[in-house]
């Protein structure tokens, strides 16, 4: 019994944020909060560290720019210079303006897809993955705070009491 997780169900985003703040401030570690939409302020309330996922976008984007620069240089300057319409084609610097559109597009292409797939992989959302929300109502209109009582200094009843006082409409238990 004591190893079972506590799922405190709320029906309002603001109450959820408040409840999250109350238990976190009391030194209880909140595993996570399930919600049907992004609840603003919840990251701050349960002390969730800032995501660094935009770094991935930057790195992939930079990869795109460098790849496009290398590709245009290799293909049109180094390997087989083409003189089309008298446009300079014998040095990258002179030909650079023509290469800007392709460099820009590849920056966006790699940056965007790199970021999307990074997001999918690190969040475990992939085709065929199983969802982990404990209650189907969390994608509709309910909010659940998940706490593992075995890892807290406080007694279980004390935690449940706090969650209820903060406005929980149900307390469920699960693995």
């Amino acid at each position, binding site marked *: 019994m004591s190893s079972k997780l506590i799922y405190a169900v709320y029906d309002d985003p603001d109450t959820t944020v408040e409840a999250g703040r109350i238990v976190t401030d009391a030194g209880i570690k909140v595993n996570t909060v399930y919600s049907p939409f992004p609840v603003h302020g*919840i990251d701050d309330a349960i002390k969730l560290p800032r995501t660094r996922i935009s770094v991935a976008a930057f790195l992939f984007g930079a990869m795109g720019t460098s790849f496009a620069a290398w590709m245009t240089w290799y293909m049109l300057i180094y390997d087989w210079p083409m003189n089309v319409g008298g446009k300079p084609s014998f040095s990258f610097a002179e030909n650079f303006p023509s290469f800007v*559109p392709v460099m820009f597009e*590849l920056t966006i292409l790699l940056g965007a897809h790199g970021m999307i797939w990074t997001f999918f992989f690190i969040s475990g959302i992939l085709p065929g993955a199983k969802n982990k929300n404990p209650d189907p109502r969390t994608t509709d209109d309910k909010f659940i705070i998940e706490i593992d009582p075995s890892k807290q200094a406080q007694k279980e009843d004390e935690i449940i009491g706090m969650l209820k006082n903060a406005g929980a409409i149900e307390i469920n238990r699960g693995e």
Partner: protein
Amino acid sequence: MHGESQYRVPLIRGDKTYHQITEDICAPIEGRAGKLWYLAFTVSAVAALWGVGCISYLLGTGVGVWGLNRTVNWAWDITNFVWWVGIGHAGTLISAVLLLFRQRWRMAVNRSAEAMTIFAVVCAGMFPLIHMGRLWVGYWTLPLPNQFGSLWVNFNSPLLWDVFAISTYFSVSLGFWYTGLIPDFATVRDRQVIPWMKKIYQITSFGWSGTAKQWQRFEEVSLVLAGMSTPLVLSVHTIVSFDFATSVIPGWHTTIFPPYFVAGAIFSGFAMVLTLLLIMRKVLKLEDYITVGHVESMNKIIIVTGSIVGVAYITELFVAYYSGVQYEQYAFLNRATGPLAWSYWIMMGCNVISPQVFWIKKLRTNLTFTFFMSLVVNVGMWFERFVIIVTSLHRDYLPSSWTMFYPTWVDVGVYVGTMGIFFTLFLLFSRTFPVIAMAELKSILKISGEGWKKRQKEHEHEHDHH
């Protein structure tokens, strides 16, 4: 939660709960389609099949079955290409640019507008490919050494830039759209009782659980993708305009093209969004979410972009005169008074004069009138591309090669076919996808829902009495 000014009209009508939003938006997916839907679907599917037939005939016989000739070597095909790409722009504008500007009204329309973007780009992309005549060598546009040696593609050519721009635009829009769909698919999944439906939405929702960390990353991804899509969408029509602007054809070789094309694209795209949404909100009973306020906002964007387009037309005309270049001057004289002048005046009438009526509030909040105007703008913008392409080409530098362009039934058939494909895809979308971004909409319910705003007002009054 922060309240919104009472002066603002609520974005969600009626006293909705979170659950009611889920119910309303999942209803078309779970319910049965009406007769009207089947009728529309049949008509669109027949048109799409007709288009596939025309394309097969074209590919089997050759591009000669189109009305093109030595002088007018671009006509309906590229007109349609530019028209469809332009239509696509509204979706990205709504989902990316309006996200950066924190415009809450975008949330009710972004999903379907983005779907429209994707379907429009599918239709657009078809035209350059079939114009090759030999579809199976389409991969020659990719940066591969061709089989005649180590010759590569030419990165100096705007046509090649277009290959990169359109494919990036299509795939990034698709990724952006799908990322936004995942939480909503999860909502549909979690309420399914029919096993096979649950299975399908289980797969499409990628196992989304909606944890705080997932939402935090989701929001960051949406913001950064919006930041990337904004310059992307501007670059796409800029590059499409480069196809013309970097050439030496009078009427095309102008520096005004990029901003003028981008504004025109957004203008026509919003018109198409209105055409689709005004029907969709009625048929799917989404009037509480896509309100007159939403339509009015879109009409305001139509005035702005329509006016930019109007100014561009007149600037172009003036600069042609002022340049002192006789070829340039003749190109514009021919547009306005030549044998295709009728198309020029349709363009001017539909794009410059008619959108100005939206300055009148009564008209821009009238849904029937807006629907009519959205069709007018779509026609006008098609003719804009036709005027630019055909009138510039058919009387070029060499009067001995002057000719006319007449479309053949295959030209018309392929165009009608893409319309069919577009509407077929959109109709399928409207019955299988959550057509409104539920999760996003729920996040503004307490700020901009009618019921919540009313309670907030009463609350404020109570405070006044003390």
